């Protein structure tokens, strides 16, 4: 492959402590190197902003529920359409774009890696078929374990080795990256039209509690020495007053020691569960106690799940919350059943600035990011497409960087919002370095992919580089937010693995991305007990034959396997 030299770049690379230094970046064979020869292709960045390629640690870009969203929303496929070009296919859709548009949209914003945050084991084949067709970006999927029969049986019998063996099998079977837990226990209860109400509410027929599920999966996660921690969507999400459950859930993992240089708990889209009040009438923000907890504890990280006004398609493995949403809003809804595993729900909705409920939700996401002191602890996401589509990330970045920009948005929002939140009084403005943390460095750290060369620009890292048409030393991001947003929206260059894939905001090449997955060695005796149990369950309860089931290598054409072992 060719060599490339990016000259005069103003670089922000938090993992390597580079804070706005003017430097050159050399690329050879898709990796960052010390230097290249004189014949290398040269890009003169001319002092413009250079970040590592963006990483999205939590998004919903592939799999059956995304596809259900597409089927449910023919109206969405009329939005954001772009005709084909010489290199790209036609693009449709805003909240649930077509498969190709997913990759193009990320690349245009300088993003090069994204994690699909919920893969049910039985639907993993479909997920990988879609991931494979998403162009340009590298991908991975987090496998759902929070309401699986196998998980709950092992936990009830307090058999940690068997649980770890099942997790290892589940990651292999789904070619997954880590443990995702959604509304622990609630997905199973939903099979009987019920839910669990808190950490100590036993799951019907299993007599295990969400507390046990979270704790033991976190322990199994460390036993297997997985690159990522458990990735948790708390109980009671989407209900006023749920911040107490959230805080109690944090505490469950307080004493779990992480084996790697990362958190031992990642709690996702916390905007949806930092809510106070007893009902929608006295609904209010409780981001302060959440941020306060984060400021006092460093074992956990969260992501924002920022709300963006306008159309959204909510999709989550939390079936009961979606049913409640759909009834409340008289909206369409669909339920995805995956047999003994989790069950998802999909509901389209519209966020209105004039609704104080939506206004408060909008404020909570920003409050979480701005009240938490350590930028590494709060990742910027919109929980695409739940809080809003990922194409709005540039707007969210400017909201974090500029109080003026927030004030402009606040002018549109229902007044009651500001009595029930503290957003109007927050004057913190993040800088270019903080944004690099919140949109790439911390995502890579949280997901444990730094050692794979992602999220930074150190020698040996993947040459995933974003050059934005803005000069940090000449631009006051707190005032010129429109200019900053435009620059983030259309990268001047996106370089993926040493190849220019975006130039001046237009897609110029569509290489295939890779898929990361984890191959974990299971404890031997646990593995035997687990397989016996699993074979019995497939035979007795699944409609799919176990012999027919497993994501074969053919489904993952560009794999990167991360091997780890039981300790």
């Amino acid at each position: 492959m060719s060599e490339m030299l990016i000259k005069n770049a103003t670089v922000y690379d938090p993992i390597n402590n580079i804070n706005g230094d003017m430097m050159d970046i050399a690329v050879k064979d898709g990796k960052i190197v010390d230097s290249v020869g004189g014949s290398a292709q040269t890009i003169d960045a001319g002092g413009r902003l250079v970040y590592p390629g963006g990483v999205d640690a939590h998004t919903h870009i592939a799999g059956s529920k995304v596809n259900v969203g597409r089927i449910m929303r023919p109206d969405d496929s009329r939005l954001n359409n772009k005709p084909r070009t010489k290199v790209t296919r036609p693009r449709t859709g805003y909240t649930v774009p077509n498969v190709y548009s997913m990759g193009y949209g990320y690349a245009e914003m300088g993003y090069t890696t994204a994690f699909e945050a919920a893969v049910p084991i039985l639907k993993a084949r479909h997920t990988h078929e879609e991931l494979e067709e998403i162009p340009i970006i590298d991908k991975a999927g987090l496998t759902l374990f929070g309401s699986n029969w196998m998980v709950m049986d092992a936990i009830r019998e307090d058999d940690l080795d068997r649980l770890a063996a099942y997790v290892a099998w589940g990651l292999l079977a789904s070619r997954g990256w880590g443990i995702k837990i959604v509304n622990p226990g609630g997905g199973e209860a939903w099979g009987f039209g019920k839910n669990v109400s808190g950490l100590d509410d036993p799951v019907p027929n299993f007599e295990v509690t969400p507390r046990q599920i979270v704790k033991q999966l976190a322990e199994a996660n460390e036993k297997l020495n997985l690159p990522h921690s458990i990735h948790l969507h708390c109980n009671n999400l989407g209900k006023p007053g749920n911040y107490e459950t959230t805080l109690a859930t944090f505490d469950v993992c307080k004493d779990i020691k992480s084996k790697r240089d990362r958190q031992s708990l990642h709690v996702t889209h916390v905007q949806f569960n930092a809510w106070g009040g007893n009902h929608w009438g006295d609904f209010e923000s409780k981001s302060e106690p959440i941020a306060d907890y984060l400021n006092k504890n460093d074992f956990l990280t969260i992501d924002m799940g920022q709300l963006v006004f306008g159309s959204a398609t909510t999709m989550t493995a939390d079936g009961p919350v979606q049913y409640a949403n759909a009834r409340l809003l008289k909206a369409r809804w669909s339920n995805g059943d995956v047999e003994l595993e989790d069950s998802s729900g999909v509901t389209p909705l519209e966020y209105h600035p004039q609704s104080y409920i939506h206004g408060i939700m909008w404020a909570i996401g920003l409050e979480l990011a701005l009240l938490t002191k350590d930028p590494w602890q709060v990742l910027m996401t919109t929980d695409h497409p739940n809080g809003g589509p990922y194409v709005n990330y540039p707007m969210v970045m400017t909201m974090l960087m500029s109080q003026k920009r927030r004030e402009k948005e606040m002018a549109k929002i229902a007044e009651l919002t500001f009595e029930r939140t503290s957003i109007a009084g927050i004057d913190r403005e993040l800088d270019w370095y903080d944004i690099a943390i919140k949109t790439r460095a911390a995502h890579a750290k949280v997901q444990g992919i730094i050692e794979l060369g992602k999220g930074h620009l150190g020698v040996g890292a993947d040459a995933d580089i974003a050059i934005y048409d803005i000069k940090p030393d000449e631009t006051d991001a707190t005032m010129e937010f429109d200019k900053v947003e435009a620059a983030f929206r259309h990268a001047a260059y996106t370089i993926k693995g040493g190849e220019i894939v975006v130039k001046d905001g237009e897609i110029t090449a569509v290489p295939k991305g890779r898929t990361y997955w984890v191959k974990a060695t299971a404890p031997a005796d646990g593995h035997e007990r687990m397989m016996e149990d699993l074979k019995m369950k497939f035979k007795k309860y699944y409609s799919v034959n176990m012999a027919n089931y497993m994501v074969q290598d053919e489904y993952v054409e560009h794999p990167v396997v991360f091997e780890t072992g039981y300790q």
Partner: protein
Amino acid sequence: MQTVTLVPKEQFKISVEAETIKPDNFAGKSADEIGALVAYEGNAPRPLSELFDIKVDGSADAADDVKIEINGNVNRVKRIGEAMTAGLIMINGDVDMRCGAKMKGGTITIKGNADSWVGQEMTGGEINVQGDANYYVGAGYRGEACGMRGGKITVFGNANDFVGEHMCGGEIIIKGNAGIMPGVSNKGGKIVIEGDTDMPGSEMTKGTIIVKGTVKDLMPVYQREGIEAIDGVEFTKYVGDVVVDGVGELFVK
């Protein structure tokens, strides 16, 4: 006043998507400039000059001073007048689907028949169909929460099923008969059917439907409210659809 005359060069076999044909795009342009605008025949972009003979008389500064006259058969040309804001389009023949979709202002007159989704999601302006209209007059396209939101559609002939589906505002008048389920899932606006229809107003939460002819089958989801006179004629007034807590008004003779 600028008059633009379009005559199709052939009977199109593949449908043409011609949302470029509207006064907003033609105002002040010469025949050559108009001919350079692009429509899609199937998946192939074609300049209008390849599809139509174009003649321009006079000139105009703004769309409201433009009249487009289409002479000939455009029954395979879709989306004429889409999102137009002002001016006049006269179609001397039949027209294909989605004519006047998302229209904001101005007037479209169709001398022949209109295919489905005439005035789909329009917010203003006026459409007159002198012949018949097919399905979904003034409705929303697949999955849309709101169809027509404003403006007026008059069909002088008959209309097919689902007139004004998901309508949120505006007015539709059908001088002839309408097919089944006019005003399904309506949230506002007014539909007047001078002829007969079947099963009007199911899932309607708001809005008004007046049927001057016969209702073949009245859905059992309407509550009778008594007799009320409209323009001196007595109608039975119903309120519903009660299944969806609707307060829509349905007047039946």
